[in-house]
């Protein structure tokens, strides 16, 4: 590797179309492709092939418990799924969780980022504590919050019983909205730090001169925030929202641990898992997988369009 490193040192600017390919650039092209090949193969083996397999299986009635009963049924699995109220309820749950958690995280994460940006003391301590929720296992976070909300052993009921709708008898996992609330708290706790670090990176790229100029011109703090800081962080905000939204959309661990889908708290991912792994409905489950995949693609396209930022460009700069 060392010799190739030396010869390939004079890299021409990327993205420039060259009409004539010299021997050297041809060699560089070949070397580049060879170096990325193993990574590309590993990424495709586990994603592309199973995705095609899912597309194919979704057209069959296929249950692992009776494999001989496999029968081509066309698009009828999709029909079954799309006309099932459970599918729609789970989709609505997933969207609610995504919108609420990302919205709350954006606000709290921004506050965290502002504090971290401005703080002059204990930077190491704050970085360390903010990375603990990020690094902790999601299952552990889910247990911590499940036990905190527990009716027998939790502290939420006793600490917050001054609120009119909370008493020592409040059963958080007995009905839909309280259970959804507990799940979202766990999700928000675990992932806000990640959001705040991305926002902090964006915040530190906003030029101080520009903020100062606005201050000299008499802009209030609030005006500086909305007219100068946030518009200049658009790319960072978009990257944060995009990644967190797609991550929240596949929420699974918290729900599995905290409710197992009881009290109508299933998400789309949980429904897919239940069909495939617990009920061995590979045909129906594959149709769900394909729909999940399509939703993620649509969601990503929607967010990118909404922010009008070229993703590759934004990330290249970051």
């Amino acid at each position, binding site marked *: 590797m060392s010799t190739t490193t030396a010869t390939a040192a004079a890299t021409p600017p990327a993205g420039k179309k060259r009409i004539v390919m010299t021997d050297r650039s041809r060699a*560089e092209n070949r070397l580049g*492709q060879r170096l990325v090949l193993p990574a590309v193969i590993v990424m495709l083996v586990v994603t592309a092939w199973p995705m095609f397999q899912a597309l194919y299986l979704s057209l069959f009635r296929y249950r692992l418990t009776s494999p001989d009963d496999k029968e081509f049924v066309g698009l009828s699995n999709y029909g079954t799924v799309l006309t099932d109220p459970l599918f729609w309820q789970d989709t609505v749950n997933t969207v609610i969780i995504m919108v609420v958690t990302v919205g709350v995280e954006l606000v709290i994460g921004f506050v965290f980022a502002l504090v971290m940006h401005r703080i002059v003391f204990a930077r190491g301590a704050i970085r360390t504590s903010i990375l603990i929720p990020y690094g902790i296992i999601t299952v552990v976070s889910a247990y911590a919050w499940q036990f905190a909300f527990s009716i027998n052993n939790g502290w939420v009921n006793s600490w917050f019983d001054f609120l009119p709708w909370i008493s020592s008898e409040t059963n958080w996992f007995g009905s839909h909205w309280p259970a959804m609330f507990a799940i979202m708290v766990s999700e928000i706790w675990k992932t806000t730090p990640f959001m705040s670090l991305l926002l902090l990176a964006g915040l530190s790229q906003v030029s101080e001169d520009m903020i100062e100029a606005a201050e000299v011109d008499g802009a209030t703090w609030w005006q500086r925030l909305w007219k100068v800081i946030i518009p200049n962080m658009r790319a960072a905000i978009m990257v944060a929202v995009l990644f967190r939204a797609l991550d929240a959309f596949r929420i699974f661990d918290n729900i599995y641990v905290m409710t197992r889908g009881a009290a109508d708290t299933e998400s789309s991912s949980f429904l897919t898992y239940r069909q495939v792994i617990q009920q061995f409905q590979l045909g129906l489950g594959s149709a769900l997988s394909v729909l*999940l995949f399509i939703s993620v693609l649509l969601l990503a396209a929607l967010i990118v369009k909404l922010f009008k930022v070229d993703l590759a460009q934004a990330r290249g700069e970051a």
Partner: protein
Amino acid sequence: MAAKNQTRNKIGTWVGFIFILVWCLLPVVWIMSLSLKGPGETAAGSAQFLPKSPTLQNYRDILGIGTVTPGQENTHADFLDALRNSFGIAAIATFLAVIFATLAAYAIARLDFKGKRLVLSLALAIAMFPVVALVGPLFDLWRTLGLFNTWPGLIIPYMSFTLPLAIWTLSAFFREIPWEMEQAAQVDGATSWQAFRKVIVPLAAPGVFTAAILTFFFAWNEFVLAISLTSTTASRTVPAQLSFFVGPDPFNPPYGLLAAASVVVTVPIIIIVLLFQRKIVAGLTSGAVKG
């Protein structure tokens, strides 16, 4: 006026600082406190945050040290198996993913080749992929290939899903390295191997190391594949094993035991974070991808 503003800013920063610390650490302190509560206390129910009479019995049960509570004789064996699996699988997946990612990121950062954008787009698409959507076909395929409930059965998908993160982090990092220094060393009489080992490796190592930490975190945390592609403690990892500890009555789980296990698996994370917080933050924000 300006002085008044500054005091207000200072107070605001302090309030924010305390808010962040409480937010991040309260649940961790809570799970530690719970892990010190004996089975009697949690079975009777206690709304108190701190334990009434702290005991290490849960740790004895989960690690199999000293006298174990009757009925929990097998718990520690399963847990220790899961710990071994988690460490082994995460370490191997991290090692392999980082090697592949280093090669790819080097090419992306330094070489001009056709399909570079395609590779980056593929990595991005996979980082956003809904993992559950693959579980069905992968389950079927792994059973056919004999990979179901084995270490490689988890290592391979973990590599695929951590490669995007590792490639983005490393290529961002490699772009910043002053590669001319290698030639400068050669001009000064170093052989190309010496130049690579003494100049490039020390410059690239922090980035590679950061990518390794982030990859390890992903593999250590992963749950969907861990419960879908394993069936026994031969390959079940910690997150999956924790979800099996609930016991017969889901309304009265062994709180203290689960809390003790949670603390044990959180300790490595806290140590890594304490030692390498600066690197992790740099890696997360340069790559800007979560696994």
